[in-house]
């Protein structure tokens, strides 16, 4: 799926990105993987938090050795630019003049401190599209509160829906959950804005709030409160319209299979698959209401069966019988999952510090213009000279002088 076709959606599109943590890189991916030239401005003076996050290659810390950073940053260019230097804003002006899009996801106030506002950018490039994507949005009482995915998920109420009855609310397993939600909404809006610019010649400011995008993932519950006054109640793995509906222990250490039964047909099929067809005739378990009443007992019986088999066996036996079931896959399973591998979720590329290393690909496949793994994640400042001299047209002597003045630290 990767490579093959050479057409690129964003051929010729230039994006300058001031990014932090995960929302920035995931947003850049959608553009860079489809052919845009994405220039990430960063500095060793204050490296992105991902560059100083575990795991490191061979457990040795280093700005270019973080597995976290390098997993998410293929296909982009890294321009080292010390924003505290006196020439920084002039460099940003030069970048802006060549860019179609400027994007950022800092806490509001950071870009302003550097003098980079929509007005500033528009003066340089009238049709620029400026995409801002902070935790709470650029205005309001919370706008300058630093936020990251774990606390934004709480702010969005998500842990209300996770946990056992009477127990504590729990974070979702990928704790920075909102980080993968916001980029999808932001990039959808950005593509629409680019299309509009191509047709009208007008740019715009897009101001996305990560919190607001995350709320669309609980929208039915927001309406349930508005019209019925209902607050969520933690219900473990039980489901109002399906029973059994839970996660069952299988052979091995911490191995589980999820099973969900939506109707009588699936219930009979499950009973037969477990070698207990007589259970299907047991009146106590007929209909959803009967099974819900005896859920604990049913779960015990299913567990007794599943615990004698591997999760993969349970999955394939039940799926063959027409019962929704799936192995509770851990990171090793995902890494080795044949279906995901075939669809190109990970791109193995040689990285100067990481060696052969899996970079994240895309979640979907375009038949005509597939995402392309072109270059591994950049070393910090790897493309500084290229961007300055080739893209911005700086002379070699100007570049050397700026470098000597510490502009590119």
């Amino acid at each position, binding site marked *: 799926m990767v490579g093959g076709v050479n057409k690129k959606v964003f051929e010729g599109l230039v994006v300058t990105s001031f990014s932090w943590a995960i929302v920035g890189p995931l947003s850049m991916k959608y553009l860079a993987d489809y052919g845009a030239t994405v220039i990430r401005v960063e500095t060793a003076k204050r490296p992105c938090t991902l560059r100083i996050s575990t795991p490191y290659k061979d457990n040795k810390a280093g700005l270019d050795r973080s597995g976290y950073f390098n997993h998410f940053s293929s296909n982009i260019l890294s321009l080292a630019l010390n924003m505290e230097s006196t020439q920084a804003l002039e460099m940003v002006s030069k970048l802006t003049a060549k860019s179609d899009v400027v994007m950022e996801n800092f806490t509001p106030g950071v870009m302003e401190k550097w003098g980079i506002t929509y007005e500033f950018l528009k003066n340089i490039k009238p049709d620029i599209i400026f995409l801002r994507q902070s935790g709470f949005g650029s205005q309001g009482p919370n*706008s300058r509160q630093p936020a*990251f995915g774990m606390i934004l998920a709480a702010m969005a109420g998500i842990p209300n829906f996770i946990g056992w009855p009477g127990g504590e609310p729990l974070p979702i397993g990928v704790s920075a959950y909102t980080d993968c939600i916001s980029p999808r909404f932001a990039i959808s809006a950005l593509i629409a804005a680019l299309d509009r610019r191509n047709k009208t010649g007008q740019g715009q400011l897009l101001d996305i709030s990560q919190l607001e995008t995350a709320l669309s993932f609980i*929208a*039915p519950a927001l309406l349930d409160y508005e019209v019925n006054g209902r607050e969520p109640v933690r219900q473990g793995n039980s489901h109002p319209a399906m029973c059994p509906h839970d996660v069952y222990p299988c052979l091995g250490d911490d191995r589980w299979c999820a099973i969900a039964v939506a109707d009588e047909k699936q219930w009979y099929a499950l009973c037969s698959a477990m070698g207990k067809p007589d259970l299907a005739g047991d009146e106590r378990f007929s209909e959803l209401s009967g099974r819900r009443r005896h859920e604990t007992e049913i779960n015990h019986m299913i567990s007794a069966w599943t615990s004698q088999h591997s999760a993969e066996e349970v999955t394939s036996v039940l799926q063959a019988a027409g019962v929704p079931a799936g192995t509770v896959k851990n990171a090793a399973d995902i890494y080795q999952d044949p279906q995901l591998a075939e669809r190109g979720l990970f791109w193995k590329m040689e990285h100067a510090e990481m060696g052969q290393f899996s970079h994240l690909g895309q979640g*979907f496949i375009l038949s005509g213009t597939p995402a392309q793994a072109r270059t591994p994640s950049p070393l910090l400042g790897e493309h500084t000279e290229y961007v300055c001299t080739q893209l911005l047209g700086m002379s070699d002597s100007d570049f050397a002088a700026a470098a000597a003045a510490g502009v590119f630290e």
Partner: protein
Amino acid sequence: MLNNCRALDLTDEKGFLCGKILADLGVEVIKVERPGGDEARTIGPFYRDIPAPDHSLYWWAYNSNKKGLTLNLESGEGRDLFRRLAAGADFIIESFKPGYLDSLELGYTDLVRLKRDIILTSITPFGPEGRYRDYQVTDIVSMAMSGILYQTGDLDTRPVHMSLPQACLHAGADAAVGTLLAYYHREQSGEGQQVDVSLQQSTAWFLANAIPMYELNQIVSRRSGSFRWSMKSSQRQVWKCRDGFVFFNIIGGRTGAKTLFELVQWMESEGYQDEYLHNTDWERLDMFAVNQDVVDRISRPIETFFGNHTRAEIAEGAARRRISVCPLSSMQDLHNDRQLAVRDFWTKVRHPGLEEDITYPRSYIKSSVVDYKIDRPAPQAGQHNQEIYGSLGLSAEEQKALSLKGVI
């Protein structure tokens, strides 16, 4: 934006969000239902807890701004009508079983003959090919197969599932991006294409650092409940407050020093003096290296402080002092939230047939040139039949006849 485009949305609940995002951005999205209405209209909860076809809040949430059309694809006449609609569409979004549209002779190769540059977006549990192709899923199965479920819950017991469906939203939002990528390409090149979205893959797309953690160190990220994963010591991320819970990580070093400094200032301003907290150099604190004693000495006074404050007090203080701490919001908290109010997040939507206007989450986009809003609530089954079939040239009598035959 995009208001010259039309999408035919054939999805079930696996794909609603895709069309919803396109509709919010200005595309004319026509939700095509079978005569009598979509199965997803039976998904609860319901308006005033009264189950009725136009009362499903799930339906409301993810189909607003769309128009509604009924059409029976299983009938020959229905397929003919669909072909006429497809000839005038930019996007077709579907989430049928792999191969279903082909079996109706409405697959991509058929559609291309009707509209050379059509974009067909297919949302399936695992993709159109491969060993899991025909697997049946519900949300708990998709979340299991995509790696998030395993990491959710406490390690001493089984993984716990988020009770609101999520995998379909990851896929739906990804499908919107994919569809628009294809559209952007079409506008440059005149070429259409297929967009193939898998619930498993879109959901597995973001597992934070779990994949590099496994690849580099062969460490499988596990569940850690209310505590942070992969720390040498036990570090809380869920804390009790007077009327609920607070989410907060103690992060040292440059990333978290400012928050800790400001939090301690706040505590001291209210008389919560603690010598250890006062004297700690937060820039030098490495939470990956600290022992349990240090964690406990930092945590105890913070725990007391949170325990004596309400969610509202913590939310207000954290916002004012710019501290990375958030209480767990109730739905009422969100309804009353000042930040969301300033951003015009809520809007009233008039529903035909209901006496009251309904408060909706408005939009996630603030644009300097376009006002994003909800123009219409989710459609009733066939609400726009007359308008759309009329535009194909079908008279009222012809429509009535087709309706009686169960075609529309």
